[in-house]
């Protein structure tokens, strides 16, 4: 049995089912409210969700019980009171790699929060918040969003985060100090003279780390797909090799194969829909040298879907890798065979913001 925790514009949905089948909606929470991201921590079984109420501001909630029941608000997911900035949105939640209850949350304006009690309370990461260059960071179209958090398996001191459009930031000391990791990225949308300005927009859309070889990372950029073999210090363009476009947002990997990555390209920044009216996931098994379309079972005609950055997830690995993604059309699609074949998991949900797959 697989569980999907799905954040949508109109609440949180939990679905359960078997790969290849249509899933059943088992619970809905935060009805009518935008759930920007939600996930179940596989270590504790705790559900965590970020709600971006337009009325009351972004909040992070958790529950250990019935998801349709009461949720607790996590403490500390705020910026320093009395300053010039307010928290605009919580984009992502990520479980740490150890069994120590560390949970991270990332948000706008380019901020990282860390919890050491499984998500009940958080503290703002001061090292990133106090970066001297912060006043010169540029926001992307979705704000100054910290959207990707990549722990290092077995080493809680090492962490990589990505901020649109302040680029990659790396720490080796648990977040006390941070350095950039943008070498090799080519923001084609900037004039050549602006490339020397390290604060000019490095619009990273999504980053994933290969769990089996943690120095290997994949990135979907705002025009460009990249691979790093040195833990995010530098990047190599892998956006050719059969992709219909190197623009897009979602990205995931097969934990069993560090040479693997999956993308869902969109046409371009000015036309953010699936190319040619066809929905296809693109897979590489050679670290990005070549990309192969995987669309068997996906809509193949007049299908102009938008898949957002957090709306692509995986569970399992290798031959048993399951892949799931949702679109702003309210449809969910899944594969139980590492992308070889696909089926519709659910339709007519609200616009999908995030998908997190795992065991119920």
């Amino acid at each position: 049995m697989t569980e999907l925790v799905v954040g949508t514009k109109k609440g949180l949905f939990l679905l359960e089912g078997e790969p290849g089948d249509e899933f059943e909606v088992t619970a809905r929470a935060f009805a009518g409210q935008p759930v920007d991201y939600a996930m179940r921590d596989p270590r504790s079984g705790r559900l965590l969700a970020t709600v971006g109420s337009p009325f009351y501001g972004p909040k992070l909630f958790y529950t250990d019980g019935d998801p349709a029941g009461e949720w607790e608000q996590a403490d500390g997911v705020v910026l320093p009171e009395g300053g010039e900035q307010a928290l605009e949105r919580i984009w992502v939640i990520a479980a740490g790699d150890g069994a120590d209850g560390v949970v991270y949350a990332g948000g706008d304006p380019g901020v990282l929060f860390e919890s050491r009690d499984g998500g009940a309370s958080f503290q703002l990461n001061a090292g990133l918040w106090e970066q001297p260059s912060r006043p010169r960071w540029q926001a992307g179209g979705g704000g100054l969003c910290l959207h990707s958090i990549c722990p290092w398996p077995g080493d809680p001191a090492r962490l990589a985060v990505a901020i649109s459009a302040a680029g990659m930031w790396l720490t080796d000391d648990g977040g006390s100090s941070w350095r950039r990791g943008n070498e090799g990225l080519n923001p084609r949308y900037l004039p050549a003279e602006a490339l020397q300005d390290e604060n000019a927009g490095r619009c990273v859309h999504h980053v994933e780390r290969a769990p089996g070889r943690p120095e290997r990372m994949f990135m979907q950029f705002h025009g460009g797909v990249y691979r790093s073999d040195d833990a995010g210090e530098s990047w190599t363009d892998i956006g050719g090799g059969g992709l219909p476009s190197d623009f897009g947002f979602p990205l995931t990997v097969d934990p069993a194969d560090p040479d693997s990555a999956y993308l869902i390209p969109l046409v371009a920044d000015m036309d953010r829909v699936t190319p040619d009216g066809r929905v296809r996931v693109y897979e590489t098994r050679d670290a990005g040298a070549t990309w192969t379309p995987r669309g068997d079972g996906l809509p193949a005609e007049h299908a102009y879907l938008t898949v957002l950055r957090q709306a692509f997830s995986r569970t399992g690995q290798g031959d048993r890798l399951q892949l799931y993604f949702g679109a702003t059309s309210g449809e969910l699609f899944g594969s139980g065979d590492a992308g070889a074949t696909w089926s519709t998991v659910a339709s007519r949900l609200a616009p999908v913001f995030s998908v997190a797959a795992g065991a119920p």
Partner: protein
Amino acid sequence: MSATSISTMAVVRVRGTLRGLAGGQSEHELDGATVVALLRALERRHPSMSGWILDERGRIRRHLSVFVGGERARESTAVRSGDRVDVVQAITGGSA
């Protein structure tokens, strides 16, 4: 005499989600000479309301409206003794 030096008891009224956070009570008699002072007093009485009406900067959240005696108010609007202060969701037509 400045507004901030006046001790003022006013009634803050909340509804819906905010009422739930305020212990299920809609009316709250509080001391404060300005809207923001009253709302901070409400947060002190009900800490779970922190961050729900005012953001970290002390500004009323964009899609909430505050009325003092039926007139649209801002953070710095002065409040007189006996005033009724309503906190309501703004009308957000045009967005589904």
